């Protein structure tokens, strides 16, 4: 008994040592809330600085984990180590990614019109809390932790969406988000409980091992897996759990929409990919070997993901055609982007067990490009919306003259989202299509090509408005911080399109 106790104590203390970035983030949430409460007349700039310093600190403590590997908070069960979280390069990438998104959206929040002259500590605390949730999602190797991470990130997101209480659309979006989120959560929990019932474990490795030993009935397992997939799809904003996306993206404060569209999606993919990795061939992130026979993915994961990818991109692009609100249009665009990204996951799942397959490089690379192009687009929308108070497509008329640099930046980002060379989006999409074709998913690659053609319509609609339509409204002044942020977001898009070779290598190294 005493031995057990000391073992547990040991486990927790060693776990906490590997958990420092998360602890920093937790502390940051508290500090931000307290700053709001106790510093009289605290300025948005002050809390933003606190948040910046805290996030940088978290990043600094996260850095050493690049070299770390292994599970933390683990215990021995049935002869294998079973942890809650894992630290590896893959987790590290997505954690860093979410951290960077939080950092990049900070200046946008400072610039956001509705946020001026408000106590912003609370908002930053919510963003940091969501980031904390995503940290857990990226590292989860236990179904319960995956679910908890999703919930944690979602809760903070609900609140941040409705942060501007005077804004009816924001409140409506928040409420819808809560309801839809809880449905998704319920669906996922149902799936989880079925899996737990069938396998008796929540740890990925143990589940996979159990499935191999006992063999679950195909349909039962498939139903359960599908329900769990629903929970992930909700975070990825992919079909069929994308319904919340347009309303929430439109209602949320634009800086938070930017955050949501990039970080939340990335975390969703991170948690999903790790789940898939465990449920296909069994060569999971940190599992003991399953013998020489790879686990047969008899419930057709690649097919399921490919179907979701196809429907996501098609539905997203087709619906975007009709949008007149730029934020709503970008919301649908992000559903379509989730489809392209899911294509990479389908290829990954299909390629597991093949010698050349199972490469996560294209997915990671596309995410790197997506970070810059989507945040760049949202940044311009934030700046323009907070200067002119407008977010409709016609309000962007003549922007090429009124704010040439902003228009140029937005154009580059849109072309990249569309996948036109020489941008990162092109290089990324090219890799996605290439690997799809190589892995016998030709039909999906063709569909993605058709979808790209469809999406050209609405991306170019905005570009055409900016350059070909007249607008007599005056110049839009943007300020130095915004210009610098724009440059930091747009230049990498071009770099990724021109000098991509080292980044392809780099993104390969983050897979597992």
């Amino acid at each position: 008994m005493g031995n057990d106790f000391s073992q547990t104590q040991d486990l927790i203390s060693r776990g906490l040592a590997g958990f420092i970035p998360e602890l920093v983030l937790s502390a940051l949430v508290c500090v931000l809330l307290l700053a709001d409460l106790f510093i009289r007349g605290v300025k948005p700039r002050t809390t933003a600085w606190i948040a910046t310093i805290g996030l940088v600190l978290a990043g600094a403590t996260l850095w050493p984990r690049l070299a770390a590997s292994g599970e933390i908070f683990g215990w021995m069960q049935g002869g294998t180590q079973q942890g809650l979280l894992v630290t590896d390069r893959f987790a590290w990438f997505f954690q860093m990614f979410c951290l960077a998104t939080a950092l990049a959206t900070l200046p946008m929040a400072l610039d956001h019109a509705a946020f001026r002259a408000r106590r912003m500590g609370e908002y930053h605390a919510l963003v940091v809390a969501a980031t904390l949730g995503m940290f857990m999602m990226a590292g989860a190797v236990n179904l319960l932790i995956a679910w908890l991470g999703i919930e944690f990130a979602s809760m903070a997101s609900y609140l941040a969406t409705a942060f501007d209480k005077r804004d009816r659309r924001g409140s409506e979006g928040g409420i819808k988000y809560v309801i839809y989120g809880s449905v998704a959560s319920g669906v996922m929990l149902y799936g989880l409980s079925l899996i737990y019932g069938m396998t008796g474990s929540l740890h990925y490795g143990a589940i996979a091992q159990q499935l191999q030993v006992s063999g679950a009935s195909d349909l039962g397992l498939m139903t359960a897996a599908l329900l769990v997939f629903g929970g992930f799809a909700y975070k990825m904003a992919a079909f069929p759990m994308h319904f919340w996306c347009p309303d929430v993206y439109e209602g949320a404060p634009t800086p938070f929409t930017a955050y949501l569209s990039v970080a939340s999606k990335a975390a969703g993919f991170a948690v999903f990919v790790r789940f898939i990795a465990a449920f296909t061939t069994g060569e999971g992130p940190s599992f003991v070997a399953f013998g020489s026979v790879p686990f047969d993915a008899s419930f057709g994961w690649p097919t399921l993901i490919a179907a979701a990818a196809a429907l996501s991109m098609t539905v997203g692009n087709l619906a975007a055609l009709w949008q007149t609100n730029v934020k709503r249009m970008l919301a649908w665009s992000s559903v379509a982007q989730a489809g392209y990204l899911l294509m990479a996951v389908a290829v990954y799942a299909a390629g597991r067990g093949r010698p050349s397959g199972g490469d996560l490089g294209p997915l990671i690379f596309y995410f790197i490009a997506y970070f810059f192009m989507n945040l760049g687009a949202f940044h311009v929308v934030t700046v323009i919306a907070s200067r002119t108070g407008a977010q409709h497509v016609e309000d962007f008329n003549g922007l090429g003259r009124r704010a040439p640099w902003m228009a140029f930046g937005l154009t580059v980002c849109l072309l990249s989202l569309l996948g036109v060379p020489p941008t990162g989006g092109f290089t990324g999409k090219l890799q996605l299509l290439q690997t799809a074709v190589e892995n016998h998913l030709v039909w999906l690659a063709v569909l993605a090509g058709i979808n790209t053609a469809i999406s050209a319509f609405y991306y170019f609609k905005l570009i055409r408005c900016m350059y070909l339509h007249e607008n007599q409204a005056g110049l839009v002044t943007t300020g130095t911080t915004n210009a610098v942020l724009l440059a930091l977001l747009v230049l990498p898009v071009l770099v990724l399109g021109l000098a991509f070779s080292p980044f392809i290598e780099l993104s390969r190294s983050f897979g597992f």
Partner: protein
Amino acid sequence: MPDTIKIALLIVVLPLAAWVLGFAHAAFRRRLPACQDWISTVAVGGSMALSLWLFFTKVLPGGGMAAPEVWSCRWFAIGSGANAFILNFDVMVDNLTILMNCVVTIVAFLVHVYSRSYMHDEDRYPRFFLHLSLFTFSMLGLLVTSNLMMLFIFWELVGVCSYFLIGFFFLKKSAGDASKKAFVVNRIGDAFFMAGIFMIGGILSKQWPGEGVLSFQRIWESIALLGQGTGPWIGHETEVALAGVFIFMGCVTKSAQFPLHVWLPDAMEGPTPVSALIHAATMVAAGVYMVARMFPLMAGKGYTSGEFFDSPALWVIAITGGITALMSGTIALVQSDLKKGLAYSTCSQLGYMVMALGVGSMGAGLFHLFTHAFFKACLFLGSGSVIHAVHSQEMKDMGGLKKKMPLTYATFLVSCLAIAGTPLFSGFLSKEAVLGQAAAFGAHHQGVLGWIPFALAAATAFLTAFYMFRLLFLTFHGKPGNQHKFDHAHESPFAMSMPLVVLAILAVIAGGIALPGGLDLGTGHWFQDRVNDKVLVQQAMPESAAFKDMQAHMVHLHEPAHGANAAIASFHEHAHHVHAPVMYMSLAAVIIGIGGAWLLFVRRRHIDLVGGIPPLARYREVLRNLYYVDWFYCQRVVPTGKDIADLAKAFDKHVVDAIVNAVARGGAHVAWFAGRVDAIVVDGAVNGSGASMMALGRFCRGFVNGRIQDYVKYTVWGLGLLLIWAVLAH
């Protein structure tokens, strides 16, 4: 990276920095800096100082650089492994690069100085310097790079700068039209050029996968291997000539060769300093430079053995150059516009250079390029000085300006003497070299055909002296054509006359100090000893076995021909024999040309040739109409092009559109059907009329109707749909 490379890159980057500075200022402050002229001038001045330093430390002492300095790094790879196509950043600095750098930076610097005075009262004055900086950067970049793709990029950059600057006075319709004409005509050659590059890249990369095959060295080596009967070109012998001709087409447009020379005279719509820099001294010479760099490719299989006088590509080049030289020379006879006259003279001289390359002498062609840059820039800037004084480009408004503008006159006279090929001037040496090579080529061929280039060149030599002195006499001698303008004419300020004087000095000494039997420099060989294919090409590849073998029995044309093979020896002997007669002949041409011009235009005061010699009057119309080349394009080529476009349009409308419409209609029907099926849930049935995609889009959007209850319902449906799909498809 070797120091020489670093300096060369610094030379290139300085003008770019001036451009970036101005552009950034414009981006953030919404206007160009008022001191853009200073920024650009200082930047190009720095480049000039560095270029001259390289010249005096690397090129002049001890016979120049023995071998080029090269440096390269990977730009990108397409594909991976054995099939990869590699493109590198290749940089190479050799004698030719440094000499060309000097030409470009000296002329550019002087043009900058000149323009500060000449352009001062024009609108968009700072922008002019911004364009000049971009041009200088692009031109210098073109010279230091050593692979075809990079060269092509800079090639296009100088092209676009030329477009900007020809159309600098874009409010004037003729200027806008001229810039468009230059742009469009140049695209024709560039299309061929690109095709040539692709051919070379395609064929070489098949044999040498995973290497930067477009670098000059690789191309040269492939030709050397071809001479030995191995290498990537085996089985593609026809493509060697074809690629050579395609690449030469790039030169045809850039260097204004017949039949695509038509843009250059119109380009005189640009400001005169631009004409001097871009359309006389540097950019138009880029074509010649490029062909010289690709000389082994043009020479083809015979390059290694020296028996390349039957190479089809070289024949095309020689004949094109000769025709251009003579044709432009005759057109120049009847021009009444001073700058147009100079423009045709430029065409003609470029033809000379091209022809020299065609008859197999890289050294002579480039030597003429080198000397021509200075005196032609001087002539253009001199004409600018005159135009500045009389506010007209028409020679009927000029005349008698000798006394009013003594300095301009003196420099113009010096340059005219140089371009005519008078002894003691640089043009004499370079022209002599070209004529000598053409004559040796003819003698070597021992047939009538072989003498064609020389005949064209000799006739042009006479014409050059004649029409240049026509321009000089009509402008500076005789009675004033327009008394009012004459009275108001005055010598230009120091900022404009100083560049003229510097260029005039260079027009004398650029060929070396031209004393017969004098200094080592006095033979004109100082240039050709440093710039010839032995130094530039063969010694560039010390590790290549093909070249080692070749050097063993290859001699330089100016060395005694011992140990050489038969072809070289024969050519060498001929060159030796024809040298003296050619020199006397060209001296006679100069004397007759200048004397004839004096007789007709000073003594008899005719204004053009046909006025002076009545039997020639029937050719007046032909010359005035520029041999009907422009007319042919406008009346025949362009309408045919339009007819083809109309045909394509009709096809597009009646066939392609019909198919598209049918598909769209089909899609619309499908959408209509889908809309019917989902009529209960879709907000209003999708009607079948709209484009199918928009209809489908409305269908998709319809699910997101704002009601959260419905979202949940549809989500469950969606999950069900996925389940069914996954079950059925598995």
